[in-house]
């Protein structure tokens, strides 16, 4: 078994475990490369079917190319898509400029997810986060419980032995399941290449710039790059020394890491 096959089989096994053990199950899709790979792995696990709903937490501020990609893939793959919006917050004018980035992310993503969990009663949701994205995500488990108020106590996690994914039923309100935890950014692109997966065209350079990470229009900046194909991107990541989420201004975790660095005397 080669490297990508091993990653793929581990993910599929976990997706099937989650489907068996956590009912009802949902899957989050942001239309980024990671969660699009996640959706493809779900299709592989269930031989082309989606036995559970796929949620898009729509902030209303996504880059236009993301909506076009969503609608195209949803139609081609037969995705049972549920678009979730915090309509009340949007009606009240919520946005990064009016309320600040952290408040905006909380209202339009976190609160929207809370609303969807309450409405659909999901026991667990699949998410495409990876360990190499950020040092705090490197601490995550494959199956990660959240309490009713959504808190995650990284220091008090239960043991996760092999692939006997544990849970702590006494405290959990819902579970986050992370089938891509062991993929790196480069693995995702190599997997996209091997499986010939479609990705949003915002990832490919136009006029010397491309998005390395995609999200909301006001909070995402393209980075300098000439990578116009998947091969170019794989080469660029292999040589590059920048960080994947450098273009993500709203990144709460980065802000926190920066704060810690600053306390240690960093600029």
């Amino acid at each position, binding site marked *: 078994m080669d490297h990508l096959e091993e990653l793929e089989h581990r993910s599929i096994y976990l997706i099937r475990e989650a489907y068996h053990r956590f009912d009802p199950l949902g899957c989050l899709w942001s239309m980024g490369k990671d969660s699009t790979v996640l959706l493809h792995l779900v299709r592989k696990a269930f031989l082309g079917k989606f036995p559970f709903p796929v949620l898009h937490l729509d902030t209303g501020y996504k880059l236009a190319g993301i909506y076009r990609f969503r609608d195209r893939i949803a139609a081609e793959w037969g995705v049972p898509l549920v678009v979730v919006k915090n309509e009340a917050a949007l009606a009240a004018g919520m946005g990064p400029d009016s309320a600040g980035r952290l408040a905006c992310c909380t209202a339009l993503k976190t609160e929207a997810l809370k609303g969807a969990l309450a409405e659909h009663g999901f026991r667990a949701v699949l998410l495409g986060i990876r360990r190499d994205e950020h040092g705090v995500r490197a601490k995550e488990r494959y199956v990660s419980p959240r309490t009713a108020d959504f808190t995650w106590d990284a220091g008090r996690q239960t043991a996760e032995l092999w692939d006997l994914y544990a849970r702590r039923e006494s405290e959990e309100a819902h579970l986050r399941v992370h089938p891509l935890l062991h993929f790196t950014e480069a693995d995702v692109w190599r997997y996209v290449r091997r499986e010939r997966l479609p990705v949003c065209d915002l990832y490919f350079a136009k006029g010397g710039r491309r998005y390395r990470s995609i999200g909301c229009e006001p909070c995402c900046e393209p980075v300098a790059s000439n990578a116009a194909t998947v091969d170019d991107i794989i080469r660029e990541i292999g040589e590059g020394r920048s960080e994947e989420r450098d273009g993500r201004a709203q990144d709460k975790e980065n802000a*926190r890491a920066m704060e810690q660095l600053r306390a240690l005397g960093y600029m």
Partner: protein
Amino acid sequence: MRRLAVAFVGEVDHGKSTLIGRLLLESGSLSGRKEEAARSGALDLAHITDQLGREQDESCTVTSAQAFLRSGGREIALVDAPGHEEFIRSMLTGASSADAAVILVDAGEGVREETRRHALLVKLLRIPQAAVVVNKIDRAASPEAVYGVRAREIRALAAEIGLPLGAVVPASARHGAMVTGRGAGLPWYAGPTVLEAILAFREPDAAGGPARFSVQDVYDFTPRKVAAGRVERGEIAAGDRLIAVPGGAAVTVERIAAFPNGGLERLGSGCAGALVLDRPERVRRGLVLAPAAEAPVAARQVKGRVFCLGPRPLAVGARFVFRLATQDLRARIGAIEERFDTGALAPRPPEGTLAPLELGLLVLELDGECVAEDGNLSPALGRFVLEDDDGPAAFGMVVPWRASS
């Protein structure tokens, strides 16, 4: 080749996180921004994996993390496991997925309680290869002599628990000696650097022998009904005639379904697959498919070497959920035959209980038949957890009946 995971284990404050930070820095695996911060001293090497505020405040890893080392065209996942006994659950989370271990020993302090416990757990978890780093060697007044003492000490420990040991490397993670380069202060040492010792770890062999397929689920919403599951050892091919254990019902593999490309000829060890069977109604989650001539034996009792995770002791008569691969059963502790202090490496008289951090030989009575095998042959069928509402209370490695009698 797949990417190996290397777990860094050992006593708290012997330098695991700092060594991982040093390896990432010197191998060029960090981003430009982090490298600059680390070189200027603004970023403590240990904080590259110790990202939680509490970990940085207390200078102690609380929960295990992974970082990716890139060197010589290879990528290796470095697993930072906490060394404090309070965080043993997290250490096991990191170590249980590892292909190799690096055991750290502080040159000044030598082998301590957690060094012994972690080395024993590396053996128990069947991590097949291990190296040792005698860290903080720069602090020793006569490094060569101290290294000799520590190397003998750790080799004696490894011999006592039957752990095969590779290189024993003297190093200073703080100053970078013998980590990726040799440094100036250790001319008497001729063995590999820490990085060379890590790159020498091999990919463990795939589990061979007669096939075992754990059924995870049966799907009827797919174009044809399929039994989804995983090949735990050996190989499954279209046309195979198998039996489902327990029970012994016969099934034939008509096809191996796959998406998007129709079907596969065969599935190797470790593959998650979906089988189209002639009699899908004969299988369900928890059954193990195997060739009739070399099928496993199912039993209502399992004997295992069990490590108690705490916080409560395990007692004879206590009930748990027993989980082994896709088999979920109810279990009662029938007997505790041996009891072992994992910090002192000393047997204790079994008096009907197993305290947290102790290792015992337990007999578990199950409410149904279970397929449990020698983990050396079928890794996933040779290990289990005992769970209650708070998650895993213990984990265990199957002791085959024949070997134990």
